[in-house]
């Protein structure tokens, strides 16, 4: 399919508008979800406060830098739950019921369509709260990150989003073969939760797994280190390269899955 950026932007805009209308349809739900987002952010602070209550440093991370990791975790969770999870959960359901057929009947790239079917707008609160935590951490440090650090962080966050998204696409692709993927989806959510801690907290095999297999380090610790100015250029480039490779892999698996797709009831 030829790439038509204008066309895809228009479809994306309509799709986001539809999600917003859906969210507004249930006003009470919208408010409750917003409040929940704030509550979770607040609760996420507790373990960190307890941990740093009687010590100054954990695995080489002081409180303020660890708070930057938590802030980025909150931000990334907002992106994940607001822009990535809803669509892909919906797709898994559609594959199970066979309604996915209608997606394949549309003259647009199917991966694009399944990735943009649903958004959960209230998770903007998570993103703002996360950014707030990072800003607060820097006031505690008594300095502001430089422009280069900020740019590197944004690039790494984009890479991290690409990786999370790619993981999801791989799960959805797997759903074509095994149909029921809800549990794996929840497992991914649970594992992602570990990204609230700096990667150095994990030892040995876990650190390896969370760096290379399920790249949690890339999602929060590395962007935080970039923001704090402690990440090497080589590591940053490796992250970007790895994310690009992961994205390409997910795309290839997706195309293969579509080829093998046979709908739920034939």
């Amino acid at each position, binding site marked *: 399919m030829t790439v038509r950026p204008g066309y895809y932007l228009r*479809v994306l805009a309509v*799709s986001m508008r539809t999600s917003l209308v*859906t969210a507004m*349809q249930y006003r009470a739900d919208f408010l409750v979800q917003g409040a929940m987002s704030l509550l979770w952010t607040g609760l996420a602070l507790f373990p960190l406060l307890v941990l740093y209550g009687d010590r100054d440093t954990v695995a080489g991370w002081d409180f303020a830098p660890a708070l930057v990791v938590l802030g980025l975790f909150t931000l990334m969770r907002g992106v994940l739950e607001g822009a990535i999870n809803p669509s892909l959960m919906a797709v898994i359901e559609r594959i199970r019921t066979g*309604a996915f*057929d209608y997606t394949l009947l*549309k003259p647009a790239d199917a991966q694009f*369509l399944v990735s943009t079917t649903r958004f959960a707008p209230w998770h903007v609160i998570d993103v703002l709260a996360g950014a707030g935590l990072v800003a607060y951490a820097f006031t505690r440090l008594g300095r502001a990150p430089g422009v280069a650090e900020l740019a590197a962080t944004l690039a790494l966050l984009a890479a991290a989003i690409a990786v999370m998204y790619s993981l999801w696409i791989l799960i959805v692709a797997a759903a074509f073969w095994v149909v029921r993927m809800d549990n794996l989806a929840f497992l991914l959510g649970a594992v992602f939760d570990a990204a609230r801690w700096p990667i150095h907290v994990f030892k040995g095999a876990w650190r390896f797994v969370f760096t290379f297999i399920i790249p949690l380090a890339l999602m929060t610790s590395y962007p935080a280190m970039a923001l704090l100015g402690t990440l090497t250029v080589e590591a940053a480039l490796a992250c970007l390269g790895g994310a690009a490779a992961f994205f390409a892999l997910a795309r290839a698996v997706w195309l293969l899955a579509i080829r093998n797709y046979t*709908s739920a009831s034939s």
Partner: protein
Amino acid sequence: MIEVRDLKKHFKVHKRPPGLGAALRSIVHRTYQTVEAVDGVSFRIERGERVGFLGPNGAGKTTTLKVLSGLLHPTSGEVTVAGHRPQRRAADFLRQITLVMGQKQQLIWDLPPAETWTLNRAVFGVNPADFDRTLAELTELLELGELAQKPTRQLSLGERMKCELAAALLHRPTTLFLDEPTIGLDVSMQVTIREFIRAYNQRHDATVMLTSHYMDDVVALCPRVIVIDGGHIIHDGDLRALVKAMLPDKRVSFSGAAAADVLARLGRLVSRDGARTTLEVPEARLREVIGHLLDGDGIGDLAIEDPPLEDVMRKLFKGKPSEPPDAG
């Protein structure tokens, strides 16, 4: 135009006997079986034709429609629809066809149908002027009225189907694959949908391929039927010719009393429902039988009809699990 040559679609399915033990074993060791859903099917449908696609459960109807609309890759054989190979799912191909599945829905559950239509307008790249014109036409033909603004979850099944049809036709496709579009609808809604399909076919010279649970749909809409069974075509041609070949006798029905022994001489008794009697009479004897009946006292309301398509199907698929034919 649709052209299908020696189409085969085979599935590999996981097979396990019933029971918990077998379920546990199947987690470790799975046995597979190949199902020949469609096994060497060929036909050609010209632009503007309305063709009924009939067969019992699991005959391969839905599989064929899915191959024709690009959802399934054929195992072998050649398929051309509107000048395209469907499995490539080219954007230009998808803009020319539509597949309506009576048992699945594309309307967004929580929102009014108009939102789904707007989304489809963007996805199909329909320009606003064409969109408005088509929507106005569909609104008139389907009598959509206020339905567009009601949340989908509040619509009745029939209202929802009308809106599903609108969603499927807003890009004005010229090839329509309709898989059980009237399933579960009441009789008057079935008639509405049927009339709509005919009107759309005539206005846009659209090709229609229809499967239906209800033989009335097929009789009303499709001069030609293709009958498929076990993945093979067993009839392709005129609907009347099929009826004549399978059940050559006519149905003669009338109201009024007639003695049992007289009836037995006239033809085979099909039913006696209150004052109304229906007989099966060979065409060659029709004149004689009618004459006799008209001579009789108190006989009126005489009608001569073809046997119902249901009976034809029943005879065709004798011993098959589903009668009348169902989604397959």
